[in-house]
């Protein structure tokens, strides 16, 4: 079949016209901020109260971009005759975002929940050396950390919830014998139910 001359052009223009009537997909970035999901790996925030200077993050980092300095302080014994305790005090916590590969291993390994991902992304610098951000900057980012998203109904219960439930059940079981309830004795069915919840 010989094509009609110019039919290809007409088809192309038809696509152009169709597209012209549609809404644009371009986001006008500096004027309109993007909506980022809570898990977005934008920048790392530090909640330094939780940091015990265990250095796990710095050790596990695949390219060693976390710098931590600390010193030991002695805390006098709380009770007379007790032992003096020493604790670590954080002097410097810096992340070189020029090296960071945004893998999130530091956040994953932190045993005391001191590091978090924030979707914040506007921290470009004109000098690569300025990308090493110190603890004050990391702390500022901490306040931009969103709450984690709720999990899919098919997901396993988070272990924090499971632990809380277990504790609550234990407490309920302890309080149970104290309650003088009319339905308490002689109803094994109900007590079986309570055991399950």
């Amino acid at each position: 079949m010989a094509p009609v001359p110019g039919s290809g052009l007409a088809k192309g223009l038809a696509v152009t016209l169709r597209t012209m009537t549609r809404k644009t997909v371009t986001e006008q970035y500096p004027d309109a901020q993007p909506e980022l999901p809570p898990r977005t790996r934008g920048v790392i925030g530090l909640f330094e109260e939780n940091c015990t200077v265990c250095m796990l993050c710095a050790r596990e980092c695949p390219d060693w971009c976390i710098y931590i300095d600390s010193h030991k302080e002695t805390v006098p014994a709380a009770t007379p005759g007790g032992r003096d305790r020493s604790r670590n005090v954080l002097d410097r916590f810096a992340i070189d975002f020029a090296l960071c590969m945004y893998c999130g291993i530091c956040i994953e390994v932190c045993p005391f929940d001191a590091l978090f991902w924030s979707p914040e992304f506007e921290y470009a610098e004109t000098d690569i050396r300025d990308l090493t951000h110190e603890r004050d900057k990391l702390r500022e980012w901490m306040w931009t950390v969103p709450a984690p998203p709720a999990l899919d109904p098919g997901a396993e219960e988070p272990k924090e919830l499971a632990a809380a439930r277990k504790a609550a059940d234990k407490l309920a079981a302890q309080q149970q014998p104290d309650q003088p309830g009319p339905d308490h004795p002689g109803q094994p069915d109900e007590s079986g139910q309570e055991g399950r919840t």
Partner: protein
Amino acid sequence: MTPTTETTVGIGGAAESTDMVLNIGPQHPSTHGVLRLKLVLDGERITSAEPVIGYMHRGAEKLFEARDYRQIIMLANRHDWLSAFSNELGVVLAVERMLGMEVPTRAVWTRTLLAELNRVLNHLMFLGSYPLELGGITPVFYAFREREVLQNVMEEVSGGRMHYMFNRVGGLKEDLPAGWTTRARGAVAAVRSRMDVFDDLVLGNEIFRGRTRGVGALSAEAVHAYGVSGPVARASGVDFDLRRDEPYLAYGELQDTLKVVTRTDGDCLARFECLLAQTHNALDLADACLDRLAELAPGPVNQRLPKVLKAPEGHTYAWTENPLGINGYYLVSKGEKTPYRLKLRSASYNNIQALAELLPGTLVADMVAILGSLFFVVGDIDK
């Protein structure tokens, strides 16, 4: 090298029968990256071609040897930056096999789903960039619009838009966010509804067809000789797909949805058609995974791991059908927390070697069409 006189000049016009050596790259827009092609030209015709690789060599295999298995995932998802999820998959599959670890069903189906979404993302990139190299500027915008839809879904689940870092030995990093499956289904439907842009606008374009049909035909023998794999190999009639022939993840149960697309011509058009049909199929597979995921009983998506994860002494080879072809990891462990050796077999490395076979005899103008139709990522070549 032939004993003929070689003159290296920037612009042509050398006397007849004088070979000209022309370097394409390492900084040439059509090589999307730092691939260098050393062409020997006789007028407009290429007499021999040699891909010079290694400008982006980052020593990934050596770096693997000084990283533990979680850190390796971070490195491994970077060699082919367009198929990060599939790259991670090979590493964790290898380690899981060494440990004899069973992955929870929910994780297996989620991994399959994300691997297929990653395949669509990868293919869309080439569906957009290949017409661009042939002079059609529009399709790349459509491709990126679709990529954006899928990347949003991937970002919501993993936090990353390219380097997902979502696989862990024994499963996935964390479970899906609530409502994610609905949004993923919506994204797949949205992308599928607009795929006719590539079916009609690109594939139906006379100029596109004229520039690709019969150009750069790769024979099945050359495919076998050079170890070419993926859609490029299937376009030459080599009917081989690990998802069907050695099913991993949940592909064994997806056989009626999985369609291995093959063509026999082996030219640029066949390669593009294979890629396009495979994109359609990957969207179907993603939907099938979402269906299965909805039926599954609640459960975990990962295993509890020891603080220090050590693969037992031994070796294994895990290969996966990555978007661009076969991606394999040969893992040798001496029982340490780092591998003794982790050999990486990447698809693009082998696919690009076929250029030495494909290019001689073709015109310089067709070189870009052939080069683009091999669908490679330079990071995947140089590792």
